């Protein structure tokens, strides 16, 4: 074989080897790409699983089961002396009336234990419901009314989900079947969930107290962190000379942004509660702690917004004879404001969902009343979720999921607002 032929064979071998390896390499590249796609889809899938599992658990809490009872509002029981004064009507034994009505509906129930089980089908809050009805219109006293009363949480869970793990006894289930056959059960919108404070009874528990607490906390956080954050950002971006002190401040802000939130809770406990003697569990303290926590976020966002204002604006203002302060406050700040507000809204969303530091300052107490001011004991929505998640009742699990849905709805709204602000006011210079 000549030299040329040998070389040709060798070239062919090389080409074959290269083509073969190229096929393998391309396959590997394709596989790599697939792995990446799988990673993205995994992330999205996990998100979807989380949302659906919470939404599917929670949506049913927006409905409650009600029992239709015919109640004789006997004057002898409610208002024997016919005074019709509010005080007497407030204190009458409405629960007794409900019990009488239940006994009439199920005359076969005789044993004491069973009777008690029968009464337990209706919520302990049903008496208040009846009282409110009578107070609204005292003329119905003495007549027979048909009222939809709140059912107990066990009945509620059974009626809505019909599951086998129900805590209802067999004989109770028979009564429920009878009620159902008489069309005395229905589901209606659960207004209690939005109008009541916390309660030990799941069917009477609501998020109004937690929402009000969150409102006060966010109000204080916003009122303090927006002015403080914006002025800090203005100073650092526009006025500060480059020296050790400003370097220190900058390093500090960057580090504070990454300090675990629970450490801010420790700070709040030691400084605001033990040192300054502010009341425990108060939204004021919660607001102060969350202010310190969100300040770095707001400062960093505000500085970015200031940086994006082009220098030509500054030079033009200075050239027209404005002082530096006038230039900043009258020209740069208005242009940077949308960006600052976007950052602030994101910081507020973070504060709204924060739980851990608020546990430290005692906002975890069981509080049934709706707070009326920033110094009242209160809890906030995420802490309420934490508290309910600990409760063993299945009905509370449903309410926890529902409270999460409400919280997420608020967060989505805030983020949409931030996106809208950015879209609307974004300027390319």
């Amino acid at each position, binding site marked *: 074989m000549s030299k040329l032929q040998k070389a040709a064979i060798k070239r062919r071998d090389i080409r074959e080897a290269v083509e073969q390896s190229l096929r393998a390499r391309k396959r590997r590249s394709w596989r790599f790409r697939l792995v990446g796609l799988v990673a993205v889809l995994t992330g999205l899938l996990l998100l979807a699983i989380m949302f659906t599992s919470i939404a599917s658990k929670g949506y049913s809490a927006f409905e409650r089961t009600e029992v239709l009872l015919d109640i004789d509002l006997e004057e002898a029981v409610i208002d024997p002396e016919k005074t019709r004064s509010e005080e007497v009507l407030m204190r009458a034994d409405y629960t007794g009336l409900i019990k009488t009505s239940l006994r009439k509906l199920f005359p076969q129930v005789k044993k004491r234990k069973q009777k008690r089980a029968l009464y337990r089908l209706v919520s302990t809050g049903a008496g208040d419901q009846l009282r409110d009805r009578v107070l609204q219109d005292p003329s119905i006293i003495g007549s027979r009314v048909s009222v939809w009363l709140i059912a107990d949480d066990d009945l509620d869970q059974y009626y809505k989900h019909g599951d086998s793990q129900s805590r209802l006894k067999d004989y109770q289930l028979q009564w429920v079947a009878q009620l159902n056959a008489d069309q005395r059960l229905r589901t209606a919108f659960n207004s209690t969930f939005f109008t009541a404070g916390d309660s030990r009874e799941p069917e009477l528990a609501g998020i109004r107290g937690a929402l009000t607490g969150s409102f006060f906390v966010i109000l204080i956080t916003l009122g303090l962190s927006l002015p403080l954050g914006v002025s800090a950002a203005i100073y650092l971006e526009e006025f500060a000379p480059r020296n050790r002190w400003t370097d220190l401040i900058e390093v500090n802000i960057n580090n504070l942004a990454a300090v675990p939130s629970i450490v801010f809770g420790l700070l709040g406990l030691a400084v605001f509660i033990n*040192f300054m003697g502010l009341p425990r569990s108060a939204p004021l303290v919660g607001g102060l702690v969350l202010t310190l926590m969100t300040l770095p976020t707001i400062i960093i966002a505000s500085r970015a917004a200031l940086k994006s204002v082009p220098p030509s604006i500054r030079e033009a203002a200075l050239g027209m004879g404005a002082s530096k302060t006038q230039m900043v406050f009258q020209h740069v700040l208005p242009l940077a404001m949308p960006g600052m507000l976007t950052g602030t809204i994101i910081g507020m969303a973070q504060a709204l969902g924060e739980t851990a530091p608020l546990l430290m300052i005692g906002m975890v107490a069981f509080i049934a009343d709706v707070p009326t001011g920033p110094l009242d004991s209160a809890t906030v929505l995420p802490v309420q979720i934490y508290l309910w998640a600990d409760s063993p009742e299945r009905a509370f699990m449903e309410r926890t999921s529902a409270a999460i849905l409400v919280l997420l709805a608020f967060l989505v709204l805030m983020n949409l607002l931030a996106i809208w602000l950015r879209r609307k006011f974004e300027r390319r210079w």
Partner: protein
Amino acid sequence: MNLFVYFIVFVLLSIGAYWYGRRYSLSLVSRDRRRLHSLPQYYGYYVALWSVVPAFLMLLLWLFLDQDLIVHLVSAGLPESIKSLSPDELGLYLNDVVNLAKGNITSSEGDAIMQQAAAHYRHLLQISHMALGIAVTGSVVAGAAFSLHRIRPDFRSRPRVERMVKWLLVLSSSIAILTTVGIVLSVLFEAIRFFKIIPLTDFLFGLQWSPQMAIREDQVGASGAFGVVPLFAGTLLIALIAMLVAVPVGLMSAIYLVEFSGSRMRAWAKPLLEILAGIPTVVYGFFAALVVAPVLRSAGESVGLQVSSESALAAGLVMGIMIIPFVSSLSDDVINAVPQAMRDGSYALGATRAETIYRVIVPAALPGIVGGVLLAVSRAIGETMIVVMAAGLTANLTVNPLDSVTTITVQIVTLLVGDQEFDSPKTLAAFALGLVLFIATLLLNVLALHVVRKYREEYE
């Protein structure tokens, strides 16, 4: 509500002062503003600042001091028999006096001495309120008079106002420093008190953690054990599991979104992934405790494994989900920052896309990626709600992810929520743990920022 009233009063006062100062300056020059040195509103600002800021500072100072001062005065007026009580008991007694004076529920029956002390307290409080009212009003009037007195047509009010504004700006930017100082001091002081009771070496190297102080002296472990090693182990175990989920998924999705996917997929997949970062941690905690943990438990049972219902695995997995967007957006940034020329060079040499990525781009972006992962680790260590809700309370020294472990943050929460006596080692231990947590995350952050910054300088 008092605070709110003060706030409104201050706002109204400053508006009034502004308006009056502006009018006064104009009246000096018979409404010919050209004869004024500065624009008339600066005279208004000047008067407003002088009348409100000193009064406001005085109010703040009073708010912080008056309680302590009054209680001190009350305790000085108590009879000797009570003053000779131990400091703790005296503190409790004074607490009762204050509660009695405010009409709250007290822990003990109020006897005559206490009633008297409460009356004394109420009396002092009244005096203090009156004094405050007089002092604040006086300071407003004095500030206004002083500033009005100084206003002349040639008075340079603009530079002065601007200097004051600048000082206010400096003050608000110093809050960041104050916060850090506050954190360090508050945590450090309590931690030092703790280390006086429990030696530092016992704390750092002890293998037992059972902070419950026994009620009877002869009970087992009567003094409690404060060895932090099991907590470290638990924290690191959960953080490790979280990283095993978050780093591959986060990094690979960042690579896919930057290098492979079209801009349209990127436009919707990236924000969707970032939703994960915006979900409150309490939601993750609920998901971990009530969805993931039962699933893991039944899955373990079906293959014959004993899975604790508070397993480290459940908490770690869910924490990993939480950290995915963190890792992916940080890696996204650094991968994007790798210069296009490096990619082009690699393609020109015949490398496939995948080869370019793991031979050229990832090595070039590695410092940034490592920095991002370090930041993610510090997040995982400091994360509280997921572990509080899904991890256990007992400190097991184990590496089995199916067992229940506890973490530093869980212990801080359990030690501080509920009953609190501020001198027991139990509460103080929480602050010592806080100090450890603060130092650990600070070191990780400093390290991560250093790595990231060093990398950035290379390409810009």
